Protein backbone atom coordinates (compact mmCIF):
# COMPACT_ATOMS: atom_id res chain seq x y z
CA UNK A 1 0.00 0.00 0.00
CA UNK A 2 1.35 3.40 -0.91
CA UNK A 3 0.88 6.07 1.68
CA UNK A 4 -0.79 9.25 0.46
CA UNK A 5 0.99 12.59 0.64
CA UNK A 6 0.66 13.91 4.25
CA UNK A 7 -0.51 17.32 3.10
CA UNK A 8 -3.26 15.64 1.13
CA UNK A 9 -4.17 13.70 4.24
CA UNK A 10 -4.54 16.96 6.17
CA UNK A 11 -6.77 18.42 3.47
CA UNK A 12 -8.88 15.29 3.48
CA UNK A 13 -9.21 15.54 7.26
CA UNK A 14 -10.38 19.11 6.86
CA UNK A 15 -12.89 18.04 4.22
CA UNK A 16 -14.14 15.45 6.66
CA UNK A 17 -14.41 18.12 9.31
CA UNK A 18 -16.44 20.35 7.01
CA UNK A 19 -18.79 17.50 6.23
CA UNK A 20 -18.99 16.72 9.94
CA UNK A 21 -20.25 20.23 10.67
CA UNK A 22 -23.09 19.90 8.19
CA UNK A 23 -23.93 16.51 9.62
CA UNK A 24 -23.87 17.96 13.09
CA UNK A 25 -26.33 20.71 12.16
CA UNK A 26 -28.80 18.22 10.73
CA UNK A 27 -28.32 15.45 13.27
CA UNK A 28 -28.51 17.74 16.30
CA UNK A 29 -31.99 18.84 15.20
CA UNK A 30 -32.95 15.23 14.64
CA UNK A 31 -31.59 14.24 18.03
CA UNK A 32 -33.28 17.17 19.80
CA UNK A 33 -36.67 16.29 18.32
CA UNK A 34 -36.24 12.64 19.21
CA UNK A 35 -35.07 13.43 22.72
CA UNK A 36 -38.01 15.67 23.56
CA UNK A 37 -40.89 14.54 21.33
CA UNK A 38 -39.87 10.90 21.03
CA UNK A 39 -40.32 11.03 17.26
CA UNK A 40 -37.68 9.86 14.84
CA UNK A 41 -38.21 12.39 12.10
CA UNK A 42 -37.58 10.87 8.68
CA UNK A 43 -38.56 14.17 7.09
CA UNK A 44 -35.51 15.85 8.61
CA UNK A 45 -33.53 15.19 5.44
CA UNK A 46 -36.36 16.75 3.44
CA UNK A 47 -36.19 19.89 5.56
CA UNK A 48 -32.45 20.03 4.85
CA UNK A 49 -33.15 19.68 1.13
CA UNK A 50 -35.77 22.44 1.27
CA UNK A 51 -33.24 24.67 3.05
CA UNK A 52 -30.85 24.25 0.13
CA UNK A 53 -33.53 24.87 -2.53
CA UNK A 54 -34.92 27.91 -0.69
CA UNK A 55 -31.44 29.40 -0.44
CA UNK A 56 -30.88 28.85 -4.14
CA UNK A 57 -34.19 30.60 -4.86
CA UNK A 58 -33.57 33.49 -2.48
CA UNK A 59 -30.03 34.16 -3.68
CA UNK A 60 -31.45 34.99 -7.09
CA UNK A 61 -34.07 37.23 -5.44
CA UNK A 62 -31.54 39.28 -3.48
CA UNK A 63 -29.22 39.86 -6.42
CA UNK A 64 -28.44 43.52 -5.73
CA UNK A 65 -28.51 43.38 -1.95
CA UNK A 66 -25.16 43.38 -0.16
CA UNK A 67 -24.63 40.12 1.69
CA UNK A 68 -27.18 38.40 -0.50
CA UNK A 69 -25.96 34.94 0.43
CA UNK A 70 -26.36 35.52 4.16
CA UNK A 71 -29.84 36.98 3.78
CA UNK A 72 -30.77 33.95 1.73
CA UNK A 73 -29.40 31.64 4.40
CA UNK A 74 -31.31 33.41 7.17
CA UNK A 75 -34.65 33.64 5.37
CA UNK A 76 -34.30 30.25 3.73
CA UNK A 77 -33.66 28.44 6.99
CA UNK A 78 -36.41 30.37 8.78
CA UNK A 79 -38.86 29.40 6.05
CA UNK A 80 -37.93 25.76 6.68
CA UNK A 81 -38.46 26.30 10.41
CA UNK A 82 -41.92 27.74 9.65
CA UNK A 83 -42.75 24.60 7.65
CA UNK A 84 -41.56 22.59 10.64
CA UNK A 85 -43.98 24.45 12.90
CA UNK A 86 -46.87 23.75 10.52
CA UNK A 87 -45.96 20.05 10.46
CA UNK A 88 -45.82 19.83 14.23
CA UNK A 89 -48.94 21.85 15.05
CA UNK A 90 -51.31 20.48 12.45
CA UNK A 91 -50.07 17.02 11.61
CA UNK A 92 -47.87 15.51 14.31
CA UNK A 93 -49.89 16.78 17.27
CA UNK A 94 -52.94 14.57 16.58
CA UNK A 95 -50.58 11.61 16.20
CA UNK A 96 -48.89 11.89 19.62
CA UNK A 97 -51.48 9.60 21.17
CA UNK A 98 -50.96 6.94 18.50
CA UNK A 99 -48.34 4.22 18.25
CA UNK A 100 -44.79 5.28 17.48
CA UNK A 101 -44.96 3.42 14.19
CA UNK A 102 -47.73 5.72 12.95
CA UNK A 103 -45.66 8.79 13.70
CA UNK A 104 -42.63 7.28 12.00
CA UNK A 105 -44.60 6.42 8.89
CA UNK A 106 -46.21 9.84 8.79
CA UNK A 107 -42.80 11.49 8.68
CA UNK A 108 -41.93 9.04 5.90
CA UNK A 109 -45.06 10.13 4.03
CA UNK A 110 -43.69 13.66 4.33
CA UNK A 111 -40.42 12.51 2.76
CA UNK A 112 -42.33 11.26 -0.28
CA UNK A 113 -44.46 14.40 -0.49
CA UNK A 114 -41.57 16.89 -0.11
CA UNK A 115 -39.31 15.10 -2.57
CA UNK A 116 -41.94 15.30 -5.32
CA UNK A 117 -42.88 18.81 -4.27
CA UNK A 118 -39.27 19.84 -4.88
CA UNK A 119 -39.25 18.01 -8.22
CA UNK A 120 -42.44 19.79 -9.31
CA UNK A 121 -41.12 23.25 -8.43
CA UNK A 122 -37.43 22.99 -9.27
CA UNK A 123 -37.33 20.08 -11.70
CA UNK A 124 -34.54 17.55 -11.77
CA UNK A 125 -31.74 19.93 -12.75
CA UNK A 126 -28.70 20.43 -10.55
CA UNK A 127 -28.29 23.80 -8.94
CA UNK A 128 -25.42 25.41 -7.17
CA UNK A 129 -25.10 28.61 -5.22
CA UNK A 130 -21.95 30.65 -5.56
CA UNK A 131 -19.98 31.35 -2.43
CA UNK A 132 -20.36 34.79 -0.82
CA UNK A 133 -17.91 37.32 -2.26
CA UNK A 134 -15.69 37.68 0.82
CA UNK A 135 -15.23 33.93 1.14
CA UNK A 136 -14.28 33.22 -2.44
CA UNK A 137 -10.80 31.93 -2.93
CA UNK A 138 -8.74 29.50 -0.95
CA UNK A 139 -6.09 29.35 1.72
CA UNK A 140 -2.74 27.67 1.30
CA UNK A 141 -2.37 24.78 3.74
CA UNK A 142 0.89 22.80 3.43
CA UNK A 143 1.00 23.59 -0.26
CA UNK A 144 -2.59 22.53 -0.88
CA UNK A 145 -5.52 24.83 -1.42
CA UNK A 146 -8.46 24.74 0.93
CA UNK A 147 -11.54 26.95 0.30
CA UNK A 148 -12.04 29.81 2.75
CA UNK A 149 -15.74 29.04 2.93
CA UNK A 150 -15.07 25.57 4.34
CA UNK A 151 -12.85 27.06 7.06
CA UNK A 152 -15.70 29.33 8.13
CA UNK A 153 -18.00 26.30 8.28
CA UNK A 154 -15.51 24.40 10.43
CA UNK A 155 -15.35 27.34 12.83
CA UNK A 156 -19.11 27.92 12.75
CA UNK A 157 -19.96 24.36 13.76
CA UNK A 158 -18.45 24.42 17.25
CA UNK A 159 -19.82 27.95 17.80
CA UNK A 160 -23.34 26.73 17.14
CA UNK A 161 -22.72 23.68 19.30
CA UNK A 162 -21.55 25.83 22.22
CA UNK A 163 -24.45 28.21 21.78
CA UNK A 164 -26.87 25.30 21.99
CA UNK A 165 -25.10 23.74 24.90
CA UNK A 166 -25.29 27.07 26.72
CA UNK A 167 -28.99 27.49 25.96
CA UNK A 168 -29.76 23.94 27.05
CA UNK A 169 -27.80 24.17 30.27
CA UNK A 170 -28.18 27.73 31.46
CA UNK A 171 -31.49 29.14 30.31
CA UNK A 172 -35.07 28.60 31.43
CA UNK A 173 -36.06 27.24 28.03
CA UNK A 174 -33.14 24.88 28.09
CA UNK A 175 -34.12 23.57 31.48
CA UNK A 176 -37.68 23.02 30.31
CA UNK A 177 -36.48 21.18 27.22
CA UNK A 178 -34.30 18.90 29.31
CA UNK A 179 -37.15 18.33 31.73
CA UNK A 180 -39.54 17.49 28.89
CA UNK A 181 -37.08 14.90 27.62
CA UNK A 182 -37.13 13.22 31.01
CA UNK A 183 -40.78 13.38 31.98
CA UNK A 184 -43.22 15.42 29.97
CA UNK A 185 -46.24 14.63 32.13
CA UNK A 186 -44.55 15.85 35.27
CA UNK A 187 -43.46 19.01 33.47
CA UNK A 188 -47.03 19.60 32.33
CA UNK A 189 -48.40 19.17 35.83
CA UNK A 190 -45.88 21.74 37.05
CA UNK A 191 -47.71 24.25 34.92
CA UNK A 192 -45.48 24.37 31.86
CA UNK A 193 -47.22 24.60 28.51
CA UNK A 194 -45.75 21.40 27.12
CA UNK A 195 -47.44 21.55 23.73
CA UNK A 196 -46.00 25.02 23.13
CA UNK A 197 -42.62 23.70 24.19
CA UNK A 198 -42.94 20.89 21.63
CA UNK A 199 -43.65 23.41 18.91
CA UNK A 200 -40.61 25.45 19.92
CA UNK A 201 -38.44 22.33 19.89
CA UNK A 202 -39.66 21.33 16.46
CA UNK A 203 -39.11 24.89 15.26
CA UNK A 204 -35.51 24.84 16.44
CA UNK A 205 -34.89 21.34 15.09
CA UNK A 206 -36.30 22.19 11.67
CA UNK A 207 -34.35 25.42 11.68
CA UNK A 208 -31.10 23.52 12.23
CA UNK A 209 -31.93 21.23 9.32
CA UNK A 210 -32.78 24.23 7.14
CA UNK A 211 -29.56 25.96 8.20
CA UNK A 212 -27.58 22.86 7.30
CA UNK A 213 -29.17 22.80 3.86
CA UNK A 214 -28.70 26.54 3.36
CA UNK A 215 -25.03 26.46 4.32
CA UNK A 216 -24.26 23.36 2.28
CA UNK A 217 -25.61 24.93 -0.91
CA UNK A 218 -22.29 26.56 -1.99
CA UNK A 219 -20.26 23.38 -1.49
CA UNK A 220 -22.49 20.65 -2.79
CA UNK A 221 -24.85 20.39 -5.74
CA UNK A 222 -28.54 20.84 -4.98
CA UNK A 223 -30.23 17.81 -6.49
CA UNK A 224 -33.34 15.72 -5.91
CA UNK A 225 -32.36 12.79 -3.73
CA UNK A 226 -30.13 14.77 -1.39
CA UNK A 227 -32.83 14.30 1.24
CA UNK A 228 -32.70 10.50 1.21
CA UNK A 229 -28.92 10.51 1.16
CA UNK A 230 -28.47 12.78 4.13
CA UNK A 231 -31.14 11.30 6.39
CA UNK A 232 -29.44 7.93 6.63
CA UNK A 233 -26.13 9.61 7.45
CA UNK A 234 -27.87 11.69 10.10
CA UNK A 235 -29.32 8.50 11.57
CA UNK A 236 -25.85 6.99 11.69
CA UNK A 237 -24.56 10.07 13.50
CA UNK A 238 -27.25 10.08 16.17
CA UNK A 239 -27.05 6.32 16.65
CA UNK A 240 -23.27 6.38 17.08
CA UNK A 241 -23.35 9.38 19.39
CA UNK A 242 -26.50 8.37 21.24
CA UNK A 243 -30.09 9.26 20.43
CA UNK A 244 -31.00 12.40 22.31
CA UNK A 245 -27.46 13.11 23.49
CA UNK A 246 -26.19 16.53 22.48
CA UNK A 247 -22.41 16.10 22.68
CA UNK A 248 -22.86 12.56 21.42
CA UNK A 249 -24.25 13.98 18.22
CA UNK A 250 -21.22 16.24 17.89
CA UNK A 251 -18.86 13.32 18.43
CA UNK A 252 -20.86 11.10 16.07
CA UNK A 253 -20.70 13.75 13.35
CA UNK A 254 -16.92 14.06 13.75
CA UNK A 255 -16.48 10.28 13.52
CA UNK A 256 -18.73 9.84 10.50
CA UNK A 257 -17.14 12.82 8.73
CA UNK A 258 -13.64 11.41 9.21
CA UNK A 259 -14.64 7.88 8.25
CA UNK A 260 -16.07 9.16 4.98
CA UNK A 261 -13.13 11.43 4.21
CA UNK A 262 -10.32 9.05 5.17
CA UNK A 263 -12.10 5.83 4.29
CA UNK A 264 -12.17 6.91 0.66
CA UNK A 265 -8.37 7.24 0.75
CA UNK A 266 -7.58 4.00 2.51
CA UNK A 267 -10.16 1.56 1.19
CA UNK A 268 -12.39 3.28 -1.35
CA UNK A 269 -14.60 0.29 -1.97
CA UNK A 270 -15.21 -0.54 1.64
CA UNK A 271 -15.82 2.91 3.10
CA UNK A 272 -19.56 2.69 2.46
CA UNK A 273 -19.78 -0.72 4.13
CA UNK A 274 -17.55 0.40 6.96
CA UNK A 275 -19.82 3.22 8.08
CA UNK A 276 -22.81 0.87 8.41
CA UNK A 277 -20.69 -1.73 10.18
CA UNK A 278 -19.71 0.96 12.65
CA UNK A 279 -23.36 1.82 13.18
CA UNK A 280 -24.28 -1.83 13.71
CA UNK A 281 -21.36 -2.36 16.12
CA UNK A 282 -22.34 0.60 18.26
CA UNK A 283 -25.94 -0.65 18.37
CA UNK A 284 -24.85 -4.15 19.34
CA UNK A 285 -22.31 -3.16 21.98
CA UNK A 286 -23.79 0.06 23.31
CA UNK A 287 -27.29 0.57 21.89
CA UNK A 288 -27.70 3.93 23.58
CA UNK A 289 -24.65 5.31 21.75
CA UNK A 290 -21.19 6.41 22.78
CA UNK A 291 -22.28 9.34 24.94
CA UNK A 292 -25.95 8.57 25.42
CA UNK A 293 -27.71 7.13 28.42
CA UNK A 294 -29.78 3.93 28.43
CA UNK A 295 -33.42 4.54 27.61
CA UNK A 296 -35.52 4.94 30.72
CA UNK A 297 -38.74 3.06 31.11
CA UNK A 298 -41.68 5.41 30.97
Amino acid at each position, binding site marked *: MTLPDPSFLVIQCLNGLTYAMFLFLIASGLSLIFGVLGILNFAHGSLYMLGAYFTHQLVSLFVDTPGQFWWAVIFGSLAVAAIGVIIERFFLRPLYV*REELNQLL*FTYALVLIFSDFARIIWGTDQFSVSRPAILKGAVDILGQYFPKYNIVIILLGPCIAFLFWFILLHTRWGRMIRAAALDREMLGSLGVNVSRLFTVVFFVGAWMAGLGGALVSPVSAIVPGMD*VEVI*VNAFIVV*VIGGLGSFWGTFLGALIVGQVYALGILVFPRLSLVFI*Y*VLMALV*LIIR*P*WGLLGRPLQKR
Partner: protein
Amino acid sequence: MSKQDWFLIPIFLILCLVPLSGSRFYVFLATDILIFALFAVSLNLLLGYTGLVSFGHAAYFGIGAYACALLMRKASIVFPVSFVAAGLFGALAALIIGFFCVRLTKIYFAMLTLAFSQIVWAAAFKWNSLTGGDTGFIGVPFPQYLDSKTRYYYFTLAVVVVCLFIIRKVVNSPFGRILTTIRENSERTEFIGINVKFFQLVAFIISGFFSALAGALFGIFNHSVFPDFLFWPASAEVLIMTILGGMYSFFGPVVGAAVVLFLRMQITSYTQYWPLILGMILAVLLFFFPGGIVGFLQNRLTLLRGNR
Protein backbone atom coordinates in the same frame (compact mmCIF):
# COMPACT_ATOMS: atom_id res chain seq x y z
CA MET B 1 -59.72 -23.96 6.40
CA SER B 2 -62.09 -22.33 8.83
CA LYS B 3 -65.53 -20.95 8.03
CA GLN B 4 -64.29 -17.38 7.90
CA ASP B 5 -62.02 -18.21 5.01
CA TRP B 6 -64.79 -19.01 2.51
CA PHE B 7 -64.01 -15.79 0.65
CA LEU B 8 -60.63 -17.19 -0.37
CA ILE B 9 -62.12 -19.70 -2.79
CA PRO B 10 -63.65 -17.22 -5.26
CA ILE B 11 -60.51 -15.04 -5.03
CA PHE B 12 -58.34 -18.04 -5.83
CA LEU B 13 -60.59 -18.96 -8.77
CA ILE B 14 -60.42 -15.40 -10.11
CA LEU B 15 -56.61 -15.47 -9.78
CA CYS B 16 -56.55 -18.73 -11.75
CA LEU B 17 -58.58 -17.11 -14.52
CA VAL B 18 -56.46 -13.96 -14.87
CA PRO B 19 -54.38 -15.24 -17.84
CA LEU B 20 -57.59 -16.14 -19.69
CA SER B 21 -58.36 -12.43 -19.96
CA GLY B 22 -55.65 -12.45 -22.64
CA SER B 23 -54.25 -9.24 -21.22
CA ARG B 24 -50.50 -9.32 -20.68
CA PHE B 25 -50.89 -6.24 -18.56
CA TYR B 26 -53.09 -7.97 -16.00
CA VAL B 27 -50.89 -11.06 -15.89
CA PHE B 28 -47.91 -8.82 -15.22
CA LEU B 29 -49.72 -6.85 -12.54
CA ALA B 30 -51.11 -9.98 -10.88
CA THR B 31 -47.64 -11.60 -10.71
CA ASP B 32 -46.22 -8.42 -9.20
CA ILE B 33 -49.01 -8.26 -6.63
CA LEU B 34 -48.66 -11.93 -5.66
CA ILE B 35 -44.91 -11.59 -5.08
CA PHE B 36 -45.23 -8.49 -2.95
CA ALA B 37 -48.20 -9.97 -1.10
CA LEU B 38 -45.92 -12.80 0.01
CA PHE B 39 -43.19 -10.31 0.96
CA ALA B 40 -45.59 -8.14 2.95
CA VAL B 41 -47.19 -11.11 4.75
CA SER B 42 -43.78 -12.41 5.78
CA LEU B 43 -42.82 -8.95 7.05
CA ASN B 44 -46.09 -8.87 8.96
CA LEU B 45 -45.18 -12.05 10.78
CA LEU B 46 -42.68 -9.81 12.59
CA LEU B 47 -44.57 -6.52 12.52
CA GLY B 48 -48.19 -7.39 13.22
CA TYR B 49 -47.80 -10.73 14.98
CA THR B 50 -44.59 -10.35 16.98
CA GLY B 51 -44.59 -6.56 17.34
CA LEU B 52 -41.09 -6.01 15.94
CA VAL B 53 -40.63 -3.13 13.51
CA SER B 54 -38.05 -4.25 10.98
CA PHE B 55 -36.78 -1.38 8.91
CA GLY B 56 -34.47 -3.50 6.83
CA HIS B 57 -36.58 -6.23 5.34
CA ALA B 58 -35.49 -5.40 1.82
CA ALA B 59 -32.24 -7.14 2.78
CA TYR B 60 -33.81 -10.62 2.80
CA PHE B 61 -35.83 -9.92 -0.32
CA GLY B 62 -32.69 -8.75 -2.09
CA ILE B 63 -30.57 -11.62 -0.76
CA GLY B 64 -33.15 -14.07 -2.12
CA ALA B 65 -33.19 -12.33 -5.49
CA TYR B 66 -29.39 -12.23 -5.79
CA ALA B 67 -28.91 -15.76 -4.45
CA CYS B 68 -31.38 -17.34 -6.87
CA ALA B 69 -30.13 -15.39 -9.88
CA LEU B 70 -26.45 -15.93 -9.09
CA LEU B 71 -26.83 -19.64 -8.41
CA MET B 72 -28.65 -20.10 -11.70
CA ARG B 73 -26.39 -17.96 -13.86
CA LYS B 74 -22.95 -18.30 -12.29
CA ALA B 75 -23.13 -21.79 -10.76
CA SER B 76 -25.55 -23.23 -13.35
CA ILE B 77 -27.64 -24.84 -10.66
CA VAL B 78 -31.13 -25.86 -11.73
CA PHE B 79 -33.94 -23.52 -10.85
CA PRO B 80 -35.80 -25.55 -8.19
CA VAL B 81 -32.61 -26.03 -6.18
CA SER B 82 -31.54 -22.38 -6.58
CA PHE B 83 -35.00 -21.26 -5.58
CA VAL B 84 -35.08 -23.22 -2.33
CA ALA B 85 -31.44 -22.31 -1.65
CA ALA B 86 -32.38 -18.64 -2.03
CA GLY B 87 -34.91 -19.06 0.75
CA LEU B 88 -32.31 -20.78 2.91
CA PHE B 89 -29.82 -17.97 2.28
CA GLY B 90 -32.47 -15.52 3.44
CA ALA B 91 -33.10 -17.63 6.54
CA LEU B 92 -29.37 -17.82 7.26
CA ALA B 93 -28.99 -14.04 6.91
CA ALA B 94 -32.01 -13.59 9.18
CA LEU B 95 -30.45 -15.95 11.72
CA ILE B 96 -27.20 -13.98 11.83
CA ILE B 97 -28.79 -10.54 11.75
CA GLY B 98 -31.71 -11.49 13.97
CA PHE B 99 -29.36 -12.92 16.60
CA PHE B 100 -28.11 -9.39 17.27
CA CYS B 101 -31.34 -7.53 16.60
CA VAL B 102 -33.66 -9.37 19.01
CA ARG B 103 -31.45 -8.21 21.87
CA LEU B 104 -32.67 -4.67 21.25
CA THR B 105 -36.10 -3.15 21.61
CA LYS B 106 -38.28 -0.70 19.75
CA ILE B 107 -36.43 2.08 17.95
CA TYR B 108 -33.04 0.45 18.50
CA PHE B 109 -34.29 -2.77 16.94
CA ALA B 110 -35.52 -0.82 13.92
CA MET B 111 -32.20 1.05 13.66
CA LEU B 112 -30.13 -2.12 13.82
CA THR B 113 -32.21 -3.87 11.15
CA LEU B 114 -31.72 -0.74 9.05
CA ALA B 115 -27.95 -0.78 9.65
CA PHE B 116 -27.64 -4.44 8.66
CA SER B 117 -29.74 -4.04 5.54
CA GLN B 118 -27.58 -1.09 4.54
CA ILE B 119 -24.46 -3.23 5.01
CA VAL B 120 -25.94 -5.81 2.64
CA TRP B 121 -26.93 -3.06 0.24
CA ALA B 122 -23.46 -1.47 0.30
CA ALA B 123 -21.89 -4.88 -0.29
CA ALA B 124 -24.14 -5.58 -3.29
CA PHE B 125 -23.50 -2.07 -4.57
CA LYS B 126 -19.71 -2.27 -4.40
CA TRP B 127 -18.99 -5.94 -5.11
CA ASN B 128 -18.89 -5.49 -8.89
CA SER B 129 -17.36 -8.84 -9.76
CA LEU B 130 -20.15 -10.79 -8.09
CA THR B 131 -23.28 -8.68 -8.28
CA GLY B 132 -22.55 -6.37 -11.18
CA GLY B 133 -22.59 -3.44 -8.74
CA ASP B 134 -24.55 -0.37 -9.63
CA THR B 135 -25.62 -1.61 -13.07
CA GLY B 136 -27.21 -4.65 -11.48
CA PHE B 137 -27.23 -8.28 -12.42
CA ILE B 138 -28.95 -8.36 -15.78
CA GLY B 139 -30.15 -11.19 -17.99
CA VAL B 140 -31.72 -13.64 -15.58
CA PRO B 141 -33.77 -15.95 -17.79
CA PHE B 142 -37.02 -17.72 -17.05
CA PRO B 143 -36.35 -21.36 -16.17
CA GLN B 144 -36.85 -23.62 -19.22
CA TYR B 145 -40.23 -25.04 -18.30
CA LEU B 146 -41.59 -21.68 -17.11
CA ASP B 147 -40.60 -19.71 -20.17
CA SER B 148 -43.72 -17.62 -20.68
CA LYS B 149 -45.36 -14.91 -18.62
CA THR B 150 -48.45 -17.07 -18.16
CA ARG B 151 -46.56 -20.13 -16.99
CA TYR B 152 -44.47 -18.05 -14.65
CA TYR B 153 -47.66 -16.49 -13.34
CA TYR B 154 -49.13 -19.90 -12.49
CA PHE B 155 -45.88 -20.92 -10.86
CA THR B 156 -45.87 -17.73 -8.76
CA LEU B 157 -49.51 -18.26 -7.85
CA ALA B 158 -48.79 -21.81 -6.69
CA VAL B 159 -45.74 -20.81 -4.66
CA VAL B 160 -47.46 -17.84 -3.04
CA VAL B 161 -50.58 -19.82 -2.16
CA VAL B 162 -48.53 -22.60 -0.60
CA CYS B 163 -46.35 -20.12 1.32
CA LEU B 164 -49.33 -18.14 2.59
CA PHE B 165 -50.98 -21.38 3.65
CA ILE B 166 -47.87 -22.34 5.63
CA ILE B 167 -47.52 -18.90 7.23
CA ARG B 168 -51.21 -19.02 8.15
CA LYS B 169 -50.66 -22.40 9.79
CA VAL B 170 -47.70 -20.93 11.66
CA VAL B 171 -49.58 -17.92 13.05
CA ASN B 172 -52.54 -20.06 14.10
CA SER B 173 -50.34 -22.63 15.80
CA PRO B 174 -49.39 -22.48 19.49
CA PHE B 175 -46.10 -21.00 18.29
CA GLY B 176 -48.02 -18.18 16.60
CA ARG B 177 -50.03 -17.57 19.77
CA ILE B 178 -46.80 -17.14 21.70
CA LEU B 179 -45.67 -14.53 19.16
CA THR B 180 -48.89 -12.61 19.70
CA THR B 181 -48.42 -12.86 23.45
CA ILE B 182 -44.94 -11.40 23.05
CA ARG B 183 -46.37 -8.54 21.03
CA GLU B 184 -48.98 -7.78 23.66
CA ASN B 185 -46.63 -7.86 26.62
CA SER B 186 -43.13 -9.23 26.31
CA GLU B 187 -42.34 -8.81 30.01
CA ARG B 188 -45.25 -10.96 31.14
CA THR B 189 -44.41 -13.52 28.49
CA GLU B 190 -40.95 -13.71 29.98
CA PHE B 191 -42.51 -14.20 33.42
CA ILE B 192 -44.48 -17.26 32.37
CA GLY B 193 -41.24 -18.92 31.41
CA ILE B 194 -41.07 -18.31 27.70
CA ASN B 195 -37.74 -17.47 26.14
CA VAL B 196 -38.90 -14.32 24.35
CA LYS B 197 -35.70 -13.68 22.41
CA PHE B 198 -35.63 -17.23 21.09
CA PHE B 199 -39.19 -17.02 19.78
CA GLN B 200 -38.52 -13.61 18.27
CA LEU B 201 -35.46 -15.01 16.54
CA VAL B 202 -37.39 -17.97 15.13
CA ALA B 203 -40.08 -15.60 13.83
CA PHE B 204 -37.31 -13.48 12.32
CA ILE B 205 -35.84 -16.51 10.52
CA ILE B 206 -39.20 -17.68 9.15
CA SER B 207 -39.89 -14.16 7.97
CA GLY B 208 -36.46 -13.95 6.34
CA PHE B 209 -36.99 -17.27 4.57
CA PHE B 210 -40.30 -16.28 2.96
CA SER B 211 -39.08 -12.76 2.15
CA ALA B 212 -36.14 -14.32 0.32
CA LEU B 213 -38.48 -16.62 -1.62
CA ALA B 214 -40.49 -13.57 -2.65
CA GLY B 215 -37.23 -11.90 -3.70
CA ALA B 216 -36.19 -14.96 -5.72
CA LEU B 217 -39.56 -14.94 -7.50
CA PHE B 218 -39.19 -11.25 -8.23
CA GLY B 219 -35.62 -11.43 -9.54
CA ILE B 220 -36.61 -13.91 -12.23
CA PHE B 221 -39.88 -12.13 -12.97
CA ASN B 222 -37.89 -8.92 -13.45
CA HIS B 223 -35.11 -10.73 -15.41
CA SER B 224 -32.55 -8.74 -13.42
CA VAL B 225 -31.54 -7.86 -9.89
CA PHE B 226 -30.45 -4.40 -8.76
CA PRO B 227 -28.91 -3.07 -5.53
CA ASP B 228 -32.02 -0.87 -5.26
CA PHE B 229 -33.94 -3.99 -4.16
CA LEU B 230 -31.94 -3.77 -0.94
CA PHE B 231 -31.87 -0.02 -0.43
CA TRP B 232 -33.80 1.25 2.59
CA PRO B 233 -36.66 2.95 0.67
CA ALA B 234 -37.56 -0.57 -0.51
CA SER B 235 -37.90 -1.60 3.13
CA ALA B 236 -40.10 1.42 3.71
CA GLU B 237 -42.27 0.51 0.73
CA VAL B 238 -43.14 -2.95 1.99
CA LEU B 239 -43.80 -1.49 5.45
CA ILE B 240 -46.23 0.93 3.84
CA MET B 241 -48.02 -1.89 2.01
CA THR B 242 -48.37 -3.82 5.26
CA ILE B 243 -49.66 -0.92 7.31
CA LEU B 244 -51.89 0.41 4.53
CA GLY B 245 -53.59 -2.95 4.25
CA GLY B 246 -53.75 -3.54 7.98
CA MET B 247 -51.11 -5.15 10.14
CA TYR B 248 -53.52 -6.73 12.59
CA SER B 249 -55.11 -9.11 10.11
CA PHE B 250 -53.52 -11.93 8.18
CA PHE B 251 -54.66 -10.80 4.74
CA GLY B 252 -54.23 -7.09 5.44
CA PRO B 253 -50.74 -6.97 3.88
CA VAL B 254 -52.07 -8.79 0.80
CA VAL B 255 -54.72 -6.11 0.35
CA GLY B 256 -52.08 -3.44 0.96
CA ALA B 257 -49.76 -4.87 -1.69
CA ALA B 258 -52.63 -5.14 -4.18
CA VAL B 259 -53.83 -1.58 -3.57
CA VAL B 260 -50.38 0.01 -3.68
CA LEU B 261 -49.23 -1.84 -6.81
CA PHE B 262 -52.54 -1.38 -8.64
CA LEU B 263 -52.61 2.33 -7.88
CA ARG B 264 -48.95 2.70 -8.85
CA MET B 265 -49.63 1.03 -12.18
CA GLN B 266 -52.64 3.26 -12.83
CA ILE B 267 -51.19 6.52 -11.56
CA THR B 268 -47.77 6.27 -13.17
CA SER B 269 -49.51 6.19 -16.55
CA TYR B 270 -50.91 9.66 -15.86
CA THR B 271 -48.18 11.33 -13.87
CA GLN B 272 -44.60 10.77 -12.80
CA TYR B 273 -45.40 12.06 -9.32
CA TRP B 274 -46.46 8.72 -7.86
CA PRO B 275 -44.48 9.18 -4.60
CA LEU B 276 -46.43 12.38 -3.93
CA ILE B 277 -49.75 10.52 -4.33
CA LEU B 278 -48.52 7.59 -2.23
CA GLY B 279 -47.35 9.98 0.47
CA MET B 280 -50.76 11.67 0.55
CA ILE B 281 -52.64 8.35 0.62
CA LEU B 282 -50.41 7.19 3.45
CA ALA B 283 -50.93 10.40 5.42
CA VAL B 284 -54.73 10.30 5.00
CA LEU B 285 -54.77 6.66 6.02
CA LEU B 286 -52.66 7.20 9.12
CA PHE B 287 -54.98 10.00 10.22
CA PHE B 288 -58.36 8.53 9.46
CA PHE B 289 -57.95 4.75 9.21
CA PRO B 290 -55.26 3.80 11.72
CA GLY B 291 -56.12 0.11 11.41
CA GLY B 292 -55.43 0.08 7.68
CA ILE B 293 -57.94 -0.83 4.99
CA VAL B 294 -58.79 -4.25 6.40
CA GLY B 295 -58.93 -2.93 9.96
CA PHE B 296 -61.40 -0.27 8.83
CA LEU B 297 -63.58 -2.79 6.99
CA GLN B 298 -63.58 -5.14 9.97
CA ASN B 299 -64.66 -2.31 12.25
CA ARG B 300 -67.53 -1.42 9.94
CA LEU B 301 -68.56 -5.04 9.73
CA THR B 302 -68.66 -5.45 13.51
CA LEU B 303 -70.66 -2.23 13.78
CA LEU B 304 -73.17 -3.48 11.22
CA ARG B 305 -73.54 -6.77 13.03
CA GLY B 306 -73.93 -4.98 16.35
CA ASN B 307 -76.75 -2.80 15.03
CA ARG B 308 -78.81 -5.71 13.88
